């Protein structure tokens, strides 16, 4: 049984069908990719899977349990974290606090109105370990808004990792990164691979094909192909979709 499954998802915005009978399955420990042209419905699909939108029809299953239509916070508490295509950080916080606020220990104590927020050395240690992992430990005390673009992308992933996810959704993590940044990100994802189930939306085919075990191709809100990178490379529909010929 897949760790996370979407069955026949259907979503319509007014008179426009954005997802139609989308079925996806992500196996535990695997790195899965979702690709497709702009406007194909990839991010909308992520938004349905992570609770931002409720599907009109269909089911979302987590470890066999139906979580369709649950709120984002309820889904996050199950161990499903995500990063965003447009960066979503706590800009006034320091880099350290962006991580610390997302840790489950902080969440468990969030109703405490008298304790010190970050007085627990174990919590501070874990935050620093995550910052080390994403290469930002030296900037722990800098305000998040002062970071350059690539570092903000890394922090975005760090915040998602701080949730101690079992499943991590990354929405176009390479967007806006140069070749160095992409290489560092690929290195980080490879280190995470195996310990966390990862799903990546990505435009960069080379990047995705080098990392993913399975890839699903979405076009016109439908899954038009699925398979291993090797199988998909030979699929004429995938090539046509990627080159925009299906439009």
């Amino acid at each position, binding site marked *: 049984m897949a760790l996370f499954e979407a069955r026949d998802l259907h979503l319509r915005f007014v008179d426009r069908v954005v997802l139609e009978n989308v079925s996806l399955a992500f196996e535990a420990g695997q790195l899965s990719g979702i690709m497709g042209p702009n406007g194909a419905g990839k991010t909308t699909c992520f938004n349905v899977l992570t609770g931002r939108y409720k599907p009109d029809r269909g089911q979302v299953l987590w470890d066999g349990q139906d979580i369709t239509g649950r709120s984002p916070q309820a889904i996050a508490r199950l161990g499903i974290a*995500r990063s965003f295509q447009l960066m979503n950080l706590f800009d006034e916080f320091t880099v350290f606090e962006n991580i610390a*606020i997302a840790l489950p220990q902080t969440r468990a104590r969030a109703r405490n109105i008298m304790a010190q*927020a970050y007085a627990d050395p174990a919590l501070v240690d874990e935050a620093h370990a995550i910052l080390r992992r994403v290469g930002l430990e030296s900037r722990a005390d800098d305000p998040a808004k002062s970071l350059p673009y690539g570092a903000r992308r890394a922090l975005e992933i760090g915040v998602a990792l701080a949730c101690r996810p079992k499943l991590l959704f990354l929405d176009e993590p390479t967007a806006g990164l140069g070749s160095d940044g992409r290489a560092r990100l690929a290195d980080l994802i490879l280190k995470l691979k195996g310990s966390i189930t990862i799903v990546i939306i990505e435009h960069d085919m080379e990047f995705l094909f080098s990392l993913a075990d399975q890839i699903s191709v979405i076009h016109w809100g439908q899954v038009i192909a699925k398979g291993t990178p090797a199988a998909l490379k030979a699929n004429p529909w995938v090539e046509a979709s990627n080159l925009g010929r299906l439009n």
Partner: protein
Amino acid sequence: MTPARRTPIFTWAMIIVWLVFASVPLWIEKVGLYHYLGVEILIFALYALAYNLVLGHAGLPSFGHGAFFGVGAYAFGLAQFNIAANLWICLAAAIGAAAIAGALVALFISHRRGIYYALMTIAFGQIFWFIAVKVHSVTGGEDGLLKIERLPVDLGLAAFDLTTNVALYYFVLAVFIVVSFLLWRIVHSPFGRVVKAIKQNETRARFVGYDVWRFKAAILVISAALSGLAGGLFSMAQASAFPDVMSLHYSGYVVMMTLVGGGLVSFWGPVIGAVAFFLARDIIGSVTTGWMLWFGLSFVVLVLFKPEGIAGIYQSLMQRRAKASAPAVAPNAQGR
């Protein structure tokens, strides 16, 4: 192991504010002012600190906070007349009634933010004000509740009379010290940091597992309860409760105090704002009856040129001073 990150329990700013307020009765009359002004400043400083939990800390623009202040004022008087003439019971009633009013409002508005939140707080503020004016049998209508007594502080073994303004000042100061200390703890607690995170990015807060609605509702209830406490103290100070304190313009005063003082950038900003507001009222008011025109103009100028308020001006000056006093380093000396 990385060392824990602790916020100091007491700060120099906190101790200086408390000590300055403690010394006020010793010199206020010597500078041509009066003790009751000190009582008003302290009560409104407390009110503005409570209000800033919502505006400055949570980023929720409430423009109807006078409703909670007023509910506290009426609850204090009504508890005194109908339940027991005991200071602690009356203050508890003020806090409890305002908390309930805050919870009721929070129930309807906590899913909103920005301009919609602001408009709904105005609407609720007007509803509470209208009720206070119209339900004559309970609130006394436009005449208000009169003959509210300054009840003695009963500590079991000893009791203190609050009939003089100096005695009342020191009692309000004790409440102010306790509440400002609690608020300092709240804003640096896990709860307070989550609220601050929600202010910056609701979406992200939701996706790391926080139920944003509950935190927004909770911070409004805490703020309303403490505003009610300030309202209770005010009704005792002026021996009456009037619907005027629930009006839109009274709600606007606390917004002005908070912004002028610098509540958006400093914990103590609202206290500075309350002091500035009342000093402007009395000092400019002694020269012209149109004091609010001048205070309003200074508010406009401040919002236009330094929205961080007086505390923001002070912080900028300190930063400039620190930069000026930092030793200059020659560019080629950095690698040595």
